[in-house]
Every structure is written in C-alpha cells, then in structure tokens.
C-alpha cells in the first residue's frame, strides 16, 4: 500500500510538471497557431536569472522564486515582441522554424555567457525533503509540485472564464479575427497568452531547479519535448487536453518503470512512446481534439 501511494505521488508529480509546461505550449498554440519550442529556453532563462540574482542580490529562496517567475514572464513576453510578432499570421512551418531558431540562439547565448557545464544553484533544494505522513515516506517536492500545478490550473480556469481578457483568449482560439472585430487589441491578447505561458514556465522552472540544483544551457529542451508529446496526445491547442496529456504521460511513464523488469529499464521511453503511437492511431487528433471541444455545429 505504501509503495502504491509513493508511486502514485511519483506519477502525479511527473504528470504535473509535464502538464505545467504543456499548458504553456497549448495556450500560445491555441491562440496563434505557434508551436513555441523556445519555451524550454524560457525555463532555462529563469534558471540563469536565478543564478545571477542568487549571486548579486539575495539567497532568500522565496524572493528568488518570485524573481524566477518574473524572469520567465519577461522572457516569454519579450520573445513574442522581438521574434514572434514579425511572423504572426505566417503559416505553421514558419512559426515552428522561428521558434527553433530562437531556441538555438538562446541556448548558444547561455553557452557563451554561462558555461557548457552545469552551474550550481541550490537555493530551492530545501523543497525536496523526505517527509513521513503516518507510516508513508514521501518526497515533499512531489507534493508541492502536484498541489501547485492543481492550483495553477484552477487559477487559469478562473482567469479564462471570469475576466474579459481570459474570455477574449478563449474566443480568439476559435476566431481571432472576430475578437478583433469586437475591438479587442490583438497585441494584448497575444501578450497575455505569452505572459501566462511564461508564468507557467516559471513555476516549472522552480521545481526543475529544486530537483536538479543546477542550470545548464539545454535544461529546458527535454521537458518541452515531452510536453509537446503531452499536447499531441491531449489534442494540440486544447488546454484541458494539455493537462490530460501531461498527467497521462506522467502516469504511463511511472507505470512502465514499475511494470518493466529492472533489466529492461532502458526500454521505458520506447514503451511509453509506443503507447503514445497507439493512442494516436485510435485518435489522430489527440484525445480531446480542439474542433470537438469548440462545439461547432457544422
């Protein structure tokens, strides 16, 4: 029983991290059809900002957490302004290539001004402790991660349903031009999407830093690749799909690791992606395809 609870928490926290990042990708994609592969570099930017702030300003982890989130929001909004605004309205491939370009440029900047080797930044490591709940020993980081993600999803739902900008974002996912015809400024909606995406990246960055205790130029790329797969499974552009895909992927990954014999541990990823492929044969548009969700009568 203990083992089951520990592994469930493990799966949930994996899923939570994927869901946070996948949501960041999905909210931008749903509005402007851009697969933002530079999202991982936004996370890395948060990590490097933490190193700089930790060296120059303070070691107070709570101040640093705010700083990391602020840095990620700034980076995300700045990337939109500098790189993605110019290709707005271009086709999917142009946006994708731009995002890859931005990603490569940023990784190289981190290499140049940082270091190819990991730089230690251990201020958040205190989040990861083993705590005992009754007889069960669990990782505190996993609990924080799961709870924070659930709170972030609730806050996002509230924002999208209750505020004018949030409603405009949902409407823009369906018909951006019509939203503009209602007098809503396109730049505001898109900047809002990038700001939320950056905020989610900031949260993910905190947890990644708590686990790794160091930054590296490529630290954001792998999580974003996994989050991309989560988006595909859930249905690209669907926000509930991104969350569902993220958690499904986390759960599958942990389940595969448990079920596979120790000697076949290396095959875990292969098995996970084989399952992903099966899901896509069953549902080529992902589990919650956006077209279905939008409830078009056509």
């Amino acid at each position, binding site marked *: 029983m203990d083992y089951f609870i520990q592994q469930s928490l493990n799966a949930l926290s994996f899923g939570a991290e994927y869901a946070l990042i996948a949501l960041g990708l999905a909210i931008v994609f749903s509005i402007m059809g851009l697969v933002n592969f530079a999202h991982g570099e936004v996370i890395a930017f948060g990590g490097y900002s933490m190193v700089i702030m930790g060296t120059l300003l303070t070691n107070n982890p709570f101040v640093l957490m705010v700083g990391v989130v602020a840095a990620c929001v700034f980076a995300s909004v700045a990337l939109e302004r500098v790189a993605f605004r110019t290709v707005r309205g271009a086709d999917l491939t142009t946006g994708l290539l731009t995002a890859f370009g931005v990603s490569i440029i940023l990784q190289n900047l981190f290499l140049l001004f940082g270091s190819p080797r990991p730089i230690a930044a251990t201020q958040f490591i205190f989040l990861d402790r083993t705590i005992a709940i009754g007889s069960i020993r669990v990782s505190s980081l996993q609990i924080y991660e799961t709870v924070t993600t659930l709170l972030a999803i609730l806050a996002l739902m509230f924002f999208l349903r209750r505020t004018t900008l949030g409603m405009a974002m949902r*409407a823009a996912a369906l018909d951006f031009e019509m939203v503009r015809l209602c007098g809503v400024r396109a730049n505001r909606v898109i900047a809002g999407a990038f700001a939320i995406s950056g905020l989610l990246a900031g949260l993910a960055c905190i947890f990644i830093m708590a686990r790794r205790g160091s930054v590296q130029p490529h630290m954001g790329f792998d999580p974003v690749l996994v989050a991309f797969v989560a988006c595909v499974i859930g249905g690209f552009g669907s926000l509930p799909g991104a969350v569902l895909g993220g958690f499904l992927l986390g759960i599958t990954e942990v389940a595969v690791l448990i079920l596979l014999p120790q000697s076949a541990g290396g095959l875990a990823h292969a098995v996970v992606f084989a399952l992903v492929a099966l899901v896509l044969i069953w549902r080529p548009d992902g589990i919650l395809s956006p077209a279905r969700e939008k409830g078009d009568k056509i």
Partner: protein
Amino acid sequence: MLEISQLKVFHGVIEAVHGIDVSVSEGQCVSLLGPNGAGKTSTLSAITGTAKSTGSIRLLGEDMTRLSIEERCRKGIAISPEGRRIFSNLTVRDNMLMGGAMRRDRAALLSEIGEWFERFPILGERAGQMAGTLSGGEQQMLAIARALLSRPRILLLDEPSLGLAPQIVAKIFEIIRELKSRGITILLVEQNAAAAIGVSDKVYILNNGRISRQGAAAEFGDGSDLMDELTGVHS
C-alpha cells in the same frame, strides 16, 4: 457619416471590387444588394479592415484606411458578419460581454445586456448556455446584440437573413426596422432584396464589383424588377 470613395478591394492578387462610391448618412439604413460574388461582403470587409483595399473610407470625416481592425471597431464600426461567427465555445452572456469588451463602463454594459435579454427572452433563458447550441435565428440575434454592445456609430449587417426560416427572417427584419427607429445607422448587405428595400432609405446594386444602379429605396418598388440584376441572369 460613412463616406466611401473609389474603393477597390483585393483578395490576394484578385480585385473583387473595382472602385465604388457609397455613402451612408446618420440614422439611415442603406442596402447593398447584388448576386453572389458581386463584392458585397468584400466591401464590408474593407470597411472593417479585414480585407486589403485602396481608396478612401471615412467615418465622421476621419480616415479609417490606415487603422487596424480593432481600432476601427473602437472608432465606431461594428459588424454582424456573414455566417454570424458567434463564439460557440463561450456562453451566450460571455458572447455579449465580448461585444462590449473594450468598454470601460461595466455597469452600463451589464444593464444593456440585461435589456437585450428582455428584448430576446430566448437568449435570456439561455444566458449561461454555450452559444454553439443556439439555433440559427438565435445566433443571428446574438450576433446583432454583440455588435451593438460596442455602442457603434454604424452597424454593418452581412446577410442577416441567410439560411433562416421565413418567420425568423420576418423577425430579423422587424429588429432591423426597430434599430433604425432608434436612430442607429445601418449598412445592410442582403440577398433578400424585397425585405431589404422595405427597411432601407437608399439602395445600391452591386454587380461584378461595380455599382450598376443606386437610388432612394422608393425608386425600387418592391424589388421585383431587380430579378435580372440580382440573379446575374440577363434575359
């Protein structure tokens, strides 16, 4: 009020409208009639800024041609577009809130939404329902209400009766007549010539991207002699 001159509208490299002049005075309802493909919707798209155009578009003397889509709406151009384009993934009430999204007087906006719900009780009953579940006629009413909630100077209506049952069409034209009596300036694009002429002060007939005829609505009678021009069939 709205002065359009030498308007050419382009879809890519194709010129859909070849330099037309249209003018709408304050409080007037003006109809733009013509067969399919005559350039009616293109003209409206040029006015709202969603299609590329040359020539001049002036609202209350102010040049609109360089403004973005959203700025034109903020200056007072609202549209109930072809196909209605309601936000089917939002509730009926949220669709209306989107119509007034740029307004700052939230209390007044909410009370106006309340008035619309009184006028169209069916929308009121379904305020919390997803707009995609409404019938065509209800969606049309919602699209008109959404456009008017931005408090426009001029309302553009693109084929409001398209695809609706005859009783609903009658109801839509009743609404248009009522809006006109409230002093709202309207530019109406329609296929239903007789009904459109009935509510209009002035009529333009558009054919192949050019204005083939224009005049006071009274000159057009009940529109029966327009059959040739409107179907594009020349007997």
